[in-house]
């Protein structure tokens, strides 16, 4: 390894490679990095690592990708055979001592090989697919498609029919019940006195508060969290439900998760307005499609990492799953009990419920049911309107069948 490293070249390469790996790196970052390097010239690889990490990182999820890129660029930049220019750049004393060990903090994360690099392929492949696939949209056929497809089971629909449903998925407006916020807005029939405005108005009436100005607390819809089972047993419904998730994220600002063996948060991926792009990003983000089912463990992950931190507090939580649990049903029950204590409502959507022979005897399902406020099928477009009603809280079926 070379004794000196060309810092400007290193900075440029790092910025470029980070961008390629999906960690946002703007000119602003580059300028800041240059200033940071000037302010505290790094003495060794560790110091350089921490400086770069502080400047470029903006999310814990990016850490794995960052560590991988840093290691690659640093080792590359240290290569004396590399076509690097300015040898007068600040030398990295002790760089030889740094050797090629992993950056501090990288060790427990394991190898970067299966790291969380955002779906680069998904982004790149998009343009090509758009070009040779004529835009299939619904406006003309919307009414008839709605009629024809409303009662069809999602599992029986083909690719084209699913695409036709995209617009319709947004139709049943998802409106979680409101909660009172701390904010108050001026309201003639409000219940609180707006002292500030009243006093201001009193200047006109010689200092006497002749006119009372009232405020009322505003209402806002509760947070909506949708957690979808994408394990093997749900395979036929996964595509349709993913479209539903996309509609929920775009339309109701929902938080979206999928799980089979592990939980993946898809909110950011599904926020793309373009359905193809959003679904492609989502597909790339989760790695366990059609795997086995670990409902209990996935719910635990959700409770521990998100729910308890505040995401589920007072929220309406929708779980789409057939309840086929490979693990211990007791874990499902325990995690549902925890979720119950956090959430405002829990809606369980099970497409198998539509079948006449269905009985919620499967371990996971039976364990979860006592904690659900609503239990609906959601297996077709018409059934999805039931889901919307259950989210709004105006269905009659409470607690199980």
């Amino acid at each position, binding site marked *: 390894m070379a004794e000196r490293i060309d810092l400007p070249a290193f900075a440029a390469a790092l910025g470029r490679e980070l961008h390629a790996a999906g960690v946002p790196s703007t000119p602003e970052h580059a300028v800041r990095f240059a200033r940071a390097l000037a302010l505290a010239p790094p003495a060794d690889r560790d110091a350089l690592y*921490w400086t770069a990490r*502080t400047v470029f990182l903006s999310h814990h999820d990016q850490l794995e990708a960052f560590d991988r890129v840093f290691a690659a660029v640093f080792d590359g930049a240290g290569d004396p055979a590399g076509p690097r220019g300015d040898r007068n750049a600040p030398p990295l004393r002790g760089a030889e001592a740094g050797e090629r060990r992993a950056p501090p903090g990288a060790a427990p994360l394991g190898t970067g090989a299966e790291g969380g690099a955002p779906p680069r392929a998904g982004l790149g492949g998009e343009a090509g697919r758009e070009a040779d696939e004529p835009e299939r949209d619904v406006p003309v056929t919307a009414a008839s498609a709605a009629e024809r497809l409303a009662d069809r089971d999602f599992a029986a629909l083909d690719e084209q029919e699913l695409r036709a449903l995209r617009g319709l998925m947004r139709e049943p407006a998802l409106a979680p019940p409101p909660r009172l916020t701390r904010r108050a807005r001026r309201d003639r029939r409000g219940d609180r006195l707006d002292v500030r405005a009243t006093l201001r108005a009193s200047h006109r009436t010689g200092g006497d508060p002749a006119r009372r100005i009232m405020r009322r607390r505003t209402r806002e819809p509760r947070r909506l969290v949708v957690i979808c089972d994408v394990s093997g047993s749900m395979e036929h419904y996964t595509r349709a439900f993913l479209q539903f998730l996309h509609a929920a994220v775009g339309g109701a600002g929902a938080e979206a998760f999928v799980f089979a063996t592990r939980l993946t948060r898809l909110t950011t991926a599904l926020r793309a307005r373009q359905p193809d792009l959003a679904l492609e990003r989502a597909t790339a983000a989760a790695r366990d499609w059609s795997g086995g089912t670990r409902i209990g463990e996935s719910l635990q992950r959700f409770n521990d990492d998100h729910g308890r931190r505040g995401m589920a507090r007072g929220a309406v939580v929708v779980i789409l799953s057939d309840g086929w649990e490979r693990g211990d049903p007791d874990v499902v029950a325990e995690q549902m009990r925890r979720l119950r204590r956090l959430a405002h409502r829990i809606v369980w959507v099970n497409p198998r419920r539509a079948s006449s022979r269905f009985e919620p005897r499967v371990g996971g399902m039976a364990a979860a049911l006592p904690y659900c406020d609503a239990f609906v099928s959601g297996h077709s477009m018409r059934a999805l309107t039931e889901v919307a009603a259950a989210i709004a809280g105006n269905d009659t079926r409470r607690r199980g069948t």
Partner: protein
Amino acid sequence: MSGAAHSGAEAAVREAVPDVDALARGLADVDYLADEGLATALFFALRLPQPLLLEGEAGVGKTEAAKSLAAMLGTPLIRLQCYEGIDAAEALYEWNYPRQLLRIRIAEAQGGEIAEEDLFSAEYLIARPLLQAIRHPGPLPAVLLVDELDRADDDFEAFLLELLAEAGITIPELGTVRATHPPLVILTSNRTRDLHDALKRRCLYHWIDYPTPEREVEIVRRRVPHAARTLAVGVAGAVRRLRAAELQKPPGVAETIDWVAALTLLGVERLDAAAAGRTLGAVLKYREDQDAIRAAGLERLVADG
């Protein structure tokens, strides 16, 4: 009030914090042991200067870092705790209406007149954290801790962003207050929602990990000076095992310190299963977690190595 003194503050900061090592030493003097990563992040936050977003599991010392930095610089720590629905009046400033009203009444009773300018003067202004931080007279900048920003609404975030960019506040009745010594801003988030990209772009970022067992022993020894060394070592080992277990709430550094303090009160000098059992409530705050650990065996929790 103007931004003219800005360069002066810079010089004072440069002098107080010449390099990363000096900052780490300064923090150690106020009993906060920062690792190289955190020290680097805090150094750049001070010297670039740039707001710093700190994230990490609960109890790894995010808030403590800001407190210690303020203690080290000898400047006030101004804390803004965010919550759902927080608005400008609670974060910025408010007029003291009862006092203004009283003043009007007194003027009336005395048959005098009172001008509006008198009512809307600094005397009747209640400065909330953001205004306090902006008005801090220096020479070193105040440390402004915006705690749990993810709990506030999006629009509050936008408002904060604007304020950070301007380093000034306009009060319609009084005019614009500019920061002579812009505060050092430290934001913390528990990641209940993603913060806006625009905000993240403006900030430096650092993820605080749990300390290594050796460092944790050092931290405990500083915070609970009369604790036995053997006890600190034993507890640090046990806590490491607890963090590796699947718990609802893995213990943070704060819990480690509490636990050692509790054990020291009982006169324990070496952690054993009985002592751990009596004091488990200091470190595990969920009944389910306690049950799980007791079921797995306290002997294994306190085992050596």
